[in-house]
């Protein structure tokens, strides 16, 4: 397969010259062996509908999530992108009155099948939220171990787990001397990386990120994005973002949602340079949204 040189559209990429140096390099390899028609799905939704009470928020989404790739979900506010990722680990139904129908396959198993325990699904499909939410009663160390400990597991070597996970999110050097301090005392960006470490400690197969940088400043955002670059080697990642530049920087695939429908799903470079749908083009060029 030929690899097109990445030339992203001027209006969207202009402002991101700071990160260009880093991402351009990474993105050269980003399009190797990926294509939306031949992608290997880790997860797949079929006719997924989601409701809050009477309101239908997702209107039949069928989408493949590529294994060990980053899939970005973009779209204007209220298009259902957050709801979509929350359906991927059955967090949607946690909200009173919320329900979903249709199929969501994780590997080959339908996670909405009656026999499937939502709690088990959430251990395989981890989640990082918009606002960093470390547990305030726990130290940095205990926050990393929280998922294991609160589930009643006792890791053989907790210190090793803590170090490994904090290394993985590139937080170790910053906090290795203050592991006993409260997680809530860290800066926003550090807290978010701590929360990512907390999710990774459970060794999930898929990591869902619901606007993980929207509460962070640009520098912290850059750190988290670098981290996503690292993580996609080992994890399947789905990231919801308001920020189209971010999608362009981190994602292999991008799905554009509008009014509860999937408008277009393709390689990120295709979405941003030659979208097939007029609405996608209108959105990414800033004509609405």
């Amino acid at each position: 397969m030929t690899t097109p040189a990445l030339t992203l559209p001027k209006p969207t990429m202009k402002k991101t010259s700071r990160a260009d140096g880093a991402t351009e390099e990474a993105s050269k390899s980003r399009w190797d062996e990926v294509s939306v028609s031949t992608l290997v799905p880790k997860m797949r939704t079929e006719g997924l509908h989601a409701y809050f009470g009477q309101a239908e928020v997702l209107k039949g989404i069928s989408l493949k999530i590529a294994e060990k790739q980053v899939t970005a979900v973009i779209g204007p506010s209220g298009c259902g992108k957050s709801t979509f990722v929350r359906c991927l680990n059955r967090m949607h139904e946690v909200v009173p009155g919320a329900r979903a129908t249709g199929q969501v396959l994780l590997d080959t198993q339908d996670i909405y099948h009656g026999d499937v325990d939502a709690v088990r699904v959430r251990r395989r499909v981890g989640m990082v939220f918009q606002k960093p939410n470390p547990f305030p009663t726990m130290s940095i160390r205990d926050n990393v171990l929280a998922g294991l400990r609160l589930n009643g597991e006792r890791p053989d070597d907790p210190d090793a787990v803590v170090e490994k996970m904090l290394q993985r999110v590139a937080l170790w050097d910053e906090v290795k001397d203050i592991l006993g301090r409260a997680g809530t005392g860290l800066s926003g960006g550090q807290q978010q990386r701590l929360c990512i470490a907390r999710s990774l400690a459970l060794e999930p197969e898929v990591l869902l990120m619901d606007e993980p940088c929207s509460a962070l400043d640009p520098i912290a955002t850059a750190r988290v994005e670098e981290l996503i670059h690292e993580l996609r080697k080992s994890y399947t990642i789905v990231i919801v973002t308001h920020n189209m530049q971010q999608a362009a920087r981190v994602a292999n695939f991008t799905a554009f949602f509008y009014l509860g429908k999937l408008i277009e799903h393709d390689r990120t470079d295709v979405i941003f340079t030659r979208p097939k749908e007029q609405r996608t083009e209108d959105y990414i060029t800033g004509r609405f949204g």
Partner: protein
Amino acid sequence: MLSTYNRRKFTDVFVRSACVVAAVIALIPLISVLYYVTARGIGGINLDFFTELPKPVGEAGGGMANAIVGTLKLVLLACAIGIPPGVLAGVYLAEFGHSRFGKLVRFSADVMSGVPSITVGIFVYSLVVLQTKQFSALAGGIALAVLMLPTVTRTTEELLKLVPESLREAALGLGLPKWRATLRVMLRTAAPGIATGVMLAVARVAGETAPLLFTAFNNRFWSSGLNEPTASLPVNIYTYAVSPYEEWHRQAWAAALVLLLLVLLLNVSARLLVRNRVGAR
């Protein structure tokens, strides 16, 4: 320009001094109670007061050791009986309180916190004392527990509701079952606040007299176990204060001072407990 500025400045000074005056007025009863009780009570306090049983009328000396122990016993009993259901009911209200039943429970708790304490005494009298045919520490403990229950329930509920919903999401996102997320994350996060609320409820019932009059009754001697009438500081204060003996009046003041200090101790320790927890963060 200048006149507007002057007018604002005057208003500022006026309102601020009004607030200070109001605060001072509010402090007057508190300070004077503290002062008066200390002044009158300090004379009756000596080692005997804490170690001796009451002496018969006419004999000098004697103490209230049995009443001090009795009050502690009643308060501990009330905690053991009242706190667990109160906290669990609070968890229920916070988690499932939107149902009809939840609203009923909340309404009952609110009504219950307004029930006069003497009424609770009569209730426990007919429920426990009449059935067991004796006044007992147990009956007194139950009466105090009933009084604590609504406060503990509503405090727990309110404090659980203050815990950010994002923490529940974090816990559920880590694959915790709902009950574990509730107990080990939500309740754990609210725990310091709940502890303060509980301590304040304890401090309040520690000074209750009316519900003890016909439940724990009184006892001039040591009471063993839970099935005997027991002395307590508030009831002793009442009994001694209405008696015609000068010596007893002196002891009533001393008992009032001890009770005040006990309640103060509970209050302060509750606050310290919370401050330390927060400081550790």
